[in-house]
């Protein structure tokens, strides 16, 4: 590869750069070489296919072991066609269709002591109903009766539960479960090593922004690193811009992600469980979770443990400790996959802006632990920089139907956000984000008013504090709004909002009403 050629490819199953899931691969190899069966549960983009390729590579090094990676269903969707394909790949031919045990016997004669079958896209088999059940039950029968000579490993999402529970798979009944997990910060850093190698390491802020936007979803992480490679000066705002492009050009990925886990039509339990975790981040009462899934809809009945595992394997929630804990220690993961989906219905641009900002801030509150980084002192934590919050707000607003101006998020000395909404053509909203008490927080009102150019109809100041002073609204009013005409507005809809002021400023001889949203973000861990 030429020295500066982009080493990242987010849309391939065999990337040039990989972060091997060493522990998972070792466990799977040990299982399969004993002739065991396993299944890998994961959401879209979580790296299942990449892991299957890694497994294939690892197992293929073993003498006497033949490994087949079956990436998709054959055109002819019958179990016989799948077996015929396996026979061909193993180099076994016969006049009549062969049973799997006959293929195994013939392969043994040809020197194959052990055959390992790796199946990707299990959901495709589950969608075919009988095909999936018959095929995998047949393979399972062979695996059990040819002790040690056949290993089977499959990867899928919700379809795995369909195959197991609706269709009654003997294979999945005995198979060992493996769960995919999002990249950790350390794994992201390892994947970003080529930046250091070319002398331009990504800053902590950029890596944090990548993590916040991607949630550690390997495909999204790789997408961000691929996009940033071409960028002259990667920044959190460049990360936001990359993901705006992603939302614009790869909507199908996001939709298929949702379909695979949350909107499959098979079961609404994962969605319900996710809503509960979002509503009770860090301390999820089990009775609330049970009640939420009590009247579940769909053909597939999913218990809450399965739902939690699915969400974790899709990178949508993070679980700490035992699944038996009550309350359960679980949080949603910050990511474009976990942004709020219901837009405000405000009748003015300003009402809609405030409503949508409150909705996004409410979600950030649920995602709180992801917005903290280690502090200077051991055990201490501090909020990520303003730019990271701003980048997340950009993505959140875009997800709610706003069009955020790309220029605004790049310009030094300009507002953090400048956005339009298609319902209000020609009107512009500006938003400034500050962390209390960092940088020039005290001048936030003036800054918003200063950005008030032609077409601007709404302005908001979002001020975030992890340890606000006692009586914060009063202190804030004194420090930031002294001399302004200030009024409390209606009770904030998001409980984490400590205050919501409307403050009036003057610009160009006209009154400018700025909404100040005071947002308390506790550490939450």
């Amino acid at each position, binding site marked *: 590869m030429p020295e500066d050629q982009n080493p990242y490819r987010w849309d391939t199953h065999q990337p040039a750069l990989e972060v091997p899931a060493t522990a998972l691969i070792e466990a799977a190899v040990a299982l399969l070489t004993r002739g*065991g069966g396993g299944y890998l549960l994961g959401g879209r983009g979580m790296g299942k296919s990449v892991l299957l390729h890694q497994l294939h590579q690892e197992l293929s090094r073993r003498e006497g072991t033949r490994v087949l990676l079956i990436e998709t269903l054959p055109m002819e969707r019958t*179990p*016989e066609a799948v*077996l015929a394909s396996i026979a061909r790949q193993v180099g076994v031919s016969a006049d009549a269709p062969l*049973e*799997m*045990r006959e293929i195994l016997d013939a392969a043994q004669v040809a020197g194959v002591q052990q055959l390992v079958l790796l199946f990707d896209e299990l959901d495709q088999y589950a969608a075919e109903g009988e095909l999936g059940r*018959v*095929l995998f*039950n*047949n393979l*399972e*029968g*062979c695996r*059990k*009766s040819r*002790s040690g000579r056949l290993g089977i490993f499959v990867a899928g999402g919700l379809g795995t539960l369909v195959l197991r*529970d609706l269709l009654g798979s*003997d294979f999945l*009944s*005995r198979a*060992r*479960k493996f769960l995919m997990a999002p990249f950790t910060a350390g794994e992201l850093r390892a994947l970003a090593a080529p930046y250091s190698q070319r002398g331009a390491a990504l800053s902590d802020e950029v890596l944090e922004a990548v993590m916040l936007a991607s949630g550690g979803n390997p495909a999204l992480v790789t997408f961000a690193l691929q996009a940033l490679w071409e960028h002259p000066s990667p920044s959190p705002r460049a990360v936001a811009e990359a993901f705006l492009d992603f939302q614009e050009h790869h909507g199908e990925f996001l939709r298929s992600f949702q379909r695979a886990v949350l909107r499959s039509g098979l079961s609404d*339990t994962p969605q319900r469980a996710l809503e509960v975790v979002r509503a009770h981040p860090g301390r999820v009462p*089990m009775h609330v979770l*049970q009640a939420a*899934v*009590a*009247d*579940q809809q769909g053909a597939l*009945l*999913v*218990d*809450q*443990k*399965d739902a939690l595992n699915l969400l974790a394997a899709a990178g949508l929630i993070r679980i700490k400790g*035992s*699944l*038996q804990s009550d309350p359960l220690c679980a949080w949603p993961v910050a990511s474009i996959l976990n942004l709020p989906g219901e837009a405000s219905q405000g009748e003015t641009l300003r009402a809609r802006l405030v409503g949508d900002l409150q909705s996004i801030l409410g979600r950030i509150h649920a995602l709180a632990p992801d917005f903290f980084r280690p502090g200077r002192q051991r055990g201490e934590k501090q909020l990520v920089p303003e730019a990271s919050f701003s980048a997340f707000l950009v993505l959140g607003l875009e997800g709610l139907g706003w069009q955020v101006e790309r220029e605004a998020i790049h310009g030094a000395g300009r507002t953090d956000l400048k956005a339009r909404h298609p319902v209000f053509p020609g009107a512009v909203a500006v938003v400034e984000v500050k962390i209390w008490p960092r940088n020039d927080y005290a001048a936030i009102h003036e800054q918003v008013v200063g950005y008030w150019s032609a077409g601007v109809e709404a302005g908001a100041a979002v001020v975030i504090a992890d340890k606000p002073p006692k009586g914060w609204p009063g202190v804030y009013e004194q420090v930031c709004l002294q001399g302004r005409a200030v009024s409390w507005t209606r009770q904030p809809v998001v409980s984490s909002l400590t205050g919501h002021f409307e403050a009036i400023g003057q610009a160009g001889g006209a009154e400018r009403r700025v909404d100040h949203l005071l947002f308390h973000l506790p550490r939450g861990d």
Partner: protein
Amino acid sequence: MAVIFNDPDPFERRDPVQGRHFFGRRRELERLQAGLHQGRWGGVFGLRKVGKTSLVRALSGGESRFIWLDIQTLLRPTPEAVCRALLRAASRTLSTDESAGLPSSPPDDHQALVALLAAALNGGARLVLVLDEVDLLFRASGLEPRLLALFRDLDGLARGSGRLSLVTIGRDPADFMALSRRLAPAGTRSRFSPLWLGPLTKSDADAMLAELGQRSGLNVGPRSLALAWEWSGGLPLLHRQFGSALLEVSREHNAAPRRSDSYAEEAASRYLERDTVLETAREIWRLLDSRYPEAATLLADLAAGRAVSPDASGTRSLRRFGLLSPGFALPRLLSWYVAEVAPPRVRAGA
């Protein structure tokens, strides 16, 4: 000093076991063995992973020659496929001498199989045909006439020689019972005798944990044995999983010598986190809910602590599957799963 074998976790077994991994079941083995000697047809039925295949494997090794066919290894269990696979299995098991005198080109696999078995029986062999996952033969639309003809021929060989037995393994014997009644000559009783396989006896269950513990350097004490029994009800795979949880916790404590009773309670909570345990409970519940709804209702009532009549419908199924003790107690695992984890829509309807 404990002998520690090179097995990281001797408790952890999901597939059928044999040899030194097989424990207990003396009465069941004796009963099956006696049936085989009388040339009867036996069947072992019960829940998935309760040890049916392991039990029949434990029968082999005597003077009888076992010819195995797992119906599940047939993509489509058509009469042709069954005959072909049985012929293949029989050819592999029987020696060339035992196949001597066979017609050189039998008209089909059915005839070839019958001829091969007849030749072996005439030579004095004692044969046992094992059909695993036999329910699959009846899955689509009952038994095909050509399969009925095959069983009729096998029955004829069995009656004529007194040395051909058949052992079937499956979930439910009803279909095979009906088949064997059709095969029985008028006025005679069916030669088929099903055995419902349930949990291990308490003493076998204790002995299994103690022995496996010894193999891994773990001293499994009385408190641990009692808790394991309480949670698993003696269902072998679930019982082993308790041992595995004990081993896992003991390794974390890193205490030597490892005496399990000091962390038995901790192991009990860890037990509920194990995938195999949860999957097994889930599977039992789904089976009952979909195929034995009265048993599911009874299970839900018992799990909820509601009073039930000893004659409640569903009792028979729960007992047959070994899920209900004579004292009307459930394995605690099942009570927990149904009361706290099972999809509530099912519970509400129960």
